[in-house]
């Protein structure tokens, strides 16, 4: 899985926001923001990676269980798929 071209993540005012260079900014509800753990996963996906790599990144950084890490990674990826900024 990889982040589609044209989508970039930027840190601003203590949060991380996704921007789409190809289109105008969307309505408030469509603006995707995330915290540092989301940004960590985003950076993995930016280079292209698998669900396992995402899970491992969370375990390494946050010392959570395998189950928890996998679940969090799945929820995150599902959100990105919904927005349409990921290609499998």
């Amino acid at each position: 899985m990889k982040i589609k071209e044209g989508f970039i993540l930027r840190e601003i005012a203590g949060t991380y926001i996704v921007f789409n260079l190809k289109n105008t900014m969307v309505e408030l509800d469509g603006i995707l923001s995330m915290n540092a753990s989301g940004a960590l996963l985003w950076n993995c996906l930016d280079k292209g990676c698998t669900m396992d790599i995402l899970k491992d990144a969370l375990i390494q950084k946050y010392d959570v269980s395998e189950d928890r890490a996998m679940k969090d990674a799945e929820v995150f990826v599902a959100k990105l798929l919904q927005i349409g900024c990921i290609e499998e």
Partner: protein
Amino acid sequence: MLYKIADLLVEIPDAGGMSSRCREYRYLDSGKPDIIIDSSRYRNHYQIENDDNLIAYMESARQFLTKLIHFNGIYLHASAVEFDGRAYLFSGPCGMGKSTHAKLWQQTFGSAAQVFNDDKPALRRIDGQWYAYGTPWCGKDGINQNKKVPLAGICFLQQADRNEIYRLESKEAVKYVFSQTANKFRKIESLDLMLKHVECLVGEIPIYLLENKPNVEAALLSHKTMCSEVKETEI
């Protein structure tokens, strides 16, 4: 023709009725323009039919407002009110009641409150102070005063069945600001420049969310909250 808008010299072609629309901003001396609007690049992105004036309005706005980022500025889709020498902006999507709320301030506070732009005021940070400016891109009611007013607060509006106001944290405020300064940047450098200005803005100007019914009580609440912030800062 040369105009002075937001303390910038701007050349705008007369096409599409722009010379009469921008009359209040005419600059009669000579000078090198900071921004040149190019009418040959006007395009109809808007599903408008046979309305060259409207296209000229939208496209000249788009060119000017995009270039503002190179002059320590951004714009906000907002109604701008001057009260007691300070600018208060009411922002939100179309139909969320920005103009209504601004007019309620006028109705409640009389001539002490003046709406000076009802669509896209320009914001610029000059010598450490943010200012809101009137621009010729002022919406269909044409409320338009060529003013430069120190910015004191920005309030995003949401319709509700009660009146309640919240001060937004920077990380929430940035999302609201982005949603109302919609712009297409082809270059990452331009996006990053805009982000720099927005981050500065939310760090220096109080930003609020007002859930409101469109009534006088809502205006009294926003006024009391936003103006008392100014007084506290000045002490």
